[in-house]
Structure formats: structure tokens, C-alpha cells
């Protein structure tokens, strides 16, 4: 029988702590496959955030450090500056990157750090129990916006990728999703490109934002969650390449 799919070596053979229907597992796999396909396993250093992906080092088999909430781009900067020959990526959620770590990602981009950022946006704080994030959609119910988020009270969902794209220090920013196989393949391509640019020594930061489901705190079934990304989330966070200076 022909083998059509197998676990890539940089993903460990284990169960994850992620909820059923969570998108992190898919994104982890895409990152690990990319690392293996590009042959950079031996020199890759990953940074785990605070948030649901805090235990990413338990699933991805590369050197990793777990850092204070939001500070991944600063730690990544420290590593990359002393080890310029290594490939350094941060893996961050929307609370981590868009809220508490807004300054760090903004300035790592502004400094044109040669880093790769995987930004998993699920519009909610998962690890702490489903609170409102800066990326939470209007009318979305969370434990800290029980009547649904309103502009009057909490302002607008924050589009970090668009903000970062304005800065000359970003060289490649693409927003993808994992709501169907075609989108997963697009996401993989984007992640590959974001790593390849770092390998090539391109001067600037690459970021792939992945709209990812959180069925648990969206109070939806996994299938409904995927649909909600396609129908609702992409209205506020349109998919596609936001910036590519290499074209």
C-alpha cells in the first residue's frame, strides 16, 4: 500500500492539550513540515508564547524557549542578534501579539528584524477562559463581553497585520486561514515563504497571520467554527497577501 501522509519528524508523536476542533494542531504541523522540508531543523529556534500555545515545545521538536506574555519578538531579537546564522521564529496568539505584546511586535518589525512570526488569531483568549481579545469581533460574546462586544464600550477589532504592513521593516505579511483544505495549503505556502525569506537573509520581518478556530470559547461545534471564520471573521480580517516586497 502506498503511504500518502506521515508525521513530519519535527512534530512529536504525542497527544496535545488542545481542545477538539482547535486550529493550533494544524498550524503546528504546517510549521514543523516547513522546518523539515527546508532542512533547517538543526538550526531553528522557536519561541512559545503565553496563551494556549505555551506548550508548543511539547509538540514541536526543535529548540524552544517559553517567554513572558507578549515578549516573544523581544526574546527573538535577542537570540537572532547573537546567533544570526540560526532561524528564529515566534509563535504567538492574538492576546499575546495584538494586546500585551503590541509594542514588542511593532518594534521588532520597525527594526526590520530578520525574523519569522506565526500569528494565530482566534479572536479570543483561550487559555484564561474565553475573555475578549483586541481581535474579538463586534457583537461577539466572550466572558468579558457577555452582551457582545460593542464599539461604544470596547472599540474596534484590531487589525495588527495591516498596521505592521505600513512599516518599512516588514517585508512579507499574509493573512491565511485553516477553515478548509485549500486554505490550509495556502497557509502552508505562506509559512514556507516566511521562513524562506529569513533563510535568504532578507532584511525585514515576515509574518503569517492564521485565522484559527476556537470552538470551545466561540460556543460552536468544530464545523460551525470553521464556517464562522469563513463567513464572519474574514469580513473583518480579509484573507490574502497584505504586503510582499519580494514581488
Amino acid at each position, binding site marked *: 500500500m502506498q503511504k500518502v501522509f506521515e508525521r513530519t519528524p519535527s512534530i512529536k508523536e504525542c497527544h496535545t492539550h488542545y481542545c477538539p476542533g482547535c486550529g493550533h494542531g494544524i498550524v503546528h504541523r504546517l510549521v514543523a513540515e516547513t522546518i523539515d522540508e527546508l532542512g533547517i*531543523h*538543526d*538550526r*531553528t*529556534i522557536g519561541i*512559545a508564547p503565553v496563551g494556549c500555545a*505555551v*506548550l508548543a*515545545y511539547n509538540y514541536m*521538536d*526543535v*529548540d*524552544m*524557549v*517559553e*517567554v*513572558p506574555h507578549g*515578549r516573544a519578538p*523581544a*526574546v*527573538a*531579537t*535577542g*537570540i*537572532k*542578534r*547573537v*546567533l544570526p546564522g*540560526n*532561524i528564529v521564529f515566534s509563535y504567538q496568539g492574538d492576546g499575546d501579539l495584538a494586546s500585551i505584546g503590541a*509594542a*514588542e511586535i*511593532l*518594534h521588532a518589525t*520597525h*527594526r526590520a528584524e530578520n525574523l519569522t512570526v506565526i500569528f494565530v488569531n482566534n479572536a479570543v483568549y483561550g487559555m484564561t477562559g474565553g475573555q475578549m481579545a483586541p481581535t474579538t469581533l463586534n457583537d461577539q460574546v466572550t466572558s468579558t463581553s457577555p452582551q457582545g462586544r460593542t464599539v461604544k464600550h470596547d472599540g474596534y477589532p484590531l487589525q495588527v497585520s495591516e498596521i505592521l504592513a505600513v512599516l518599512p521593516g516588514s517585508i512579507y505579511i499574509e493573512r491565511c486561514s485553516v477553515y478548509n483544505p485549500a486554505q490550509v495549503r495556502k497557509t502552508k505556502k505562506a509559512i514556507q515563504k516566511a521562513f524562506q525569506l529569513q533563510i535568504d537573509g532578507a532584511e525585514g520581518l515576515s509574518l503569517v497571520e492564521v485565522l484559527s478556530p476556537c470552538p470551545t470559547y466561540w460556543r460552536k461545534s468544530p464545523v460551525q467554527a470553521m464556517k464562522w471564520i469563513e463567513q464572519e471573521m474574514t469580513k473583518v480580517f480579509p484573507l490574502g497577501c497584505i504586503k510582499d516586497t519580494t514581488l
Partner: protein
Amino acid sequence: MSEKILMCGNEALSEAAIIAGVDAYFGYPITPQNEVPAYMARRMPQEGRVFLQSESELAAINMVFGAAAAGKLAMTSSSSPGISLMQEGISYMCAAQMPAVVVNVMRGGPGLGNISPSQGDYFQATRGGGHGDYRTIVLAPGSVQEMADLTHKAFELADLYRIVVMVLADGLLGQMMEPITLDHLKPIKTKAKPWALTGAKGRKQNIIKTLLLQGNELEVLNLKLQEVYRQIGDEQTRYDTYQVEDADIILVAYGITSKITRAAVSKARQKGIKAGWVRPITLWPFPSKVLTELAKEPRIFLAVEMSNGQMVEDVRLAVGGGGPVLFYGRAGGAVPTVDEVLEHIEKIMLPEVMKKA
């Protein structure tokens, strides 16, 4: 003979760090330590090493975290308000046992305070400073020469014990110039770092983390840290004394205040008052034993600080019921003068001398 050069404390500590072998400096501007990043910005690239101005102190300490995790010698410097911002990162680094050097050139507080010298961060420095049950080694230079020597030592200790070492100075020591020598300082011998993140080439994945959820693994880490702290207490406690043997009153002071009090002790001796002096060089571990020993004879202890009384609590703990522990301090950026301290000694001791007569 080694050549003397005139240097300010901030530059002296910077050059000493370079000699020790610091691979990377990250920092954010704040007075009165701006000479450090300015010096590093010029010198580090000359040495082919990393200098980077960060967007905040939060970022600076986390850049240090990154460089340390990569197995490199890294440092940052700041002053009181900036050091407060760094406490998060210091806690994480101590949990992860990352070696690094943090320099605090203290200024007047609380709040934005002023830019005058102060010793108001003693509690913060010696009690860990951030959240959780940890310590940092705290070295207190008492001269520009020691700004260099103890910063150099800080790298040695950080690397040896895998711990964050704080050099606790003040605006006066940072800004003042004195003749110093650097010839005796050499690059430190660093330990192998099999734990460092360098890419998992030919070995298993390295993980540096501080989240420990399983069973009692966090307690195990805590006990391991405490064991390191006990070892540091045994091996690295440092202090200096002056004319303590026959002293009726012993002044205890660190940093720039120790210089001032030492002069006051000399003047008191000239006036027939048997004064002595103990200078803690490591504020953590605090040199309790020497004070406990001295307190076995009937003596008065006088702690002098540029604060409203912080180190004096450690003096009280060390002295126990051994004798009265008094305090004299100036705060908010004020610096005690030799005459002020002398006057204070006289106020305490003249009635004592009278009583004895």
C-alpha cells in the same frame, strides 16, 4: 605598573563588562545611566559584539533573556523606574536559571522621582524584586574602581551559578570620575552551556521554560533554586570592615554612603569616639555573620543609607537582640555629608561616653 585612567562609574562598568566578555548589551535610555548605552553603542561594534537600543525596558530585559538562552553573556542597565519594568523578565530568567547581569544606577523615587542619587531600591533588589520565590545576587560597588571590578565579578558569578546578578549603584557612582585601573581585569572563563538554544543539531531538543504544571515539579525547581542560593550564601558573601575590633559604635553602609561614613568614622576616631565600620559588598547574600559576631560585644549599630531605612532591617535581623540598631538616612535624592554623619555619631556617643565616665 598599571596605568591609571580617569573614568566615570558608568563608563568604567561598561568597559569592565567588555573586558569580562559580554556578548550583547540591550538597554533603553534613562538618567543617570545614559553613559552606559552611549559607551556600549560605540565600543561593542568595535569588538564585533551586539549593542541594541530597545523600545522599552520590558523589551531590553527580554532581549537579554533571548541572548542568555542562546548561551551568550548578556547585560542591560537602567535606573530605578526602568528596573521596575524589568522585574517581570528577571523573575522569568531566575526561574529559567539564565545567567545575566543587570545594572541599576539608582535615582530618587518613588514614582518618576528625580535624577539624583538614591539607595531606595534596596528592598526591590535584595528580595528578588519580581514575583515568586527567587533571589538575585546583588553587588554594591563603593567606588568607581569597584563599578568596574564588581561588574566584572558579576559576569563571573552569573555564569558560575546560572543566576541574574544585579550591580546596585547610584547616580553619584555612575556620574563621578575617579582614577582607576582596568589592567588587572581579564576575560572570564565561562562554563559549558549544554542547555543553550543553538539549534538541535546532533542532540535532543533543548527547552527553556518556566511553566511547570505537572505534580510537584515546580516545588522541585524551587528547592533546587534554594540550594543554589544556600551555596551562594556560603561561597560568595562579601564585606569590608574598618576599625571594628574595639569599636563602641559600628556604622553599616554600602555604596557611595559607605565612603561617606568611613570618612565620618575616621573623624569620630580623631575626636576620641571608638567608631568602626562595616560595608556589605554583597547586599544579597547579606553579610549577617560578621554583624552577629560583632554584636556579641556591647555595641551600638548605626545604619546609614540614602533611603528611609531599608538595609537597616537586615542589620536588625543580623544583630538580633545583640545591641541597639539605629538609623540615619537621607532620601529623595539627598546625599548625607561626612559632617552630618559625624554629628549623628556624636549625638549618640557623647551621652554614652559621659555615662561611662
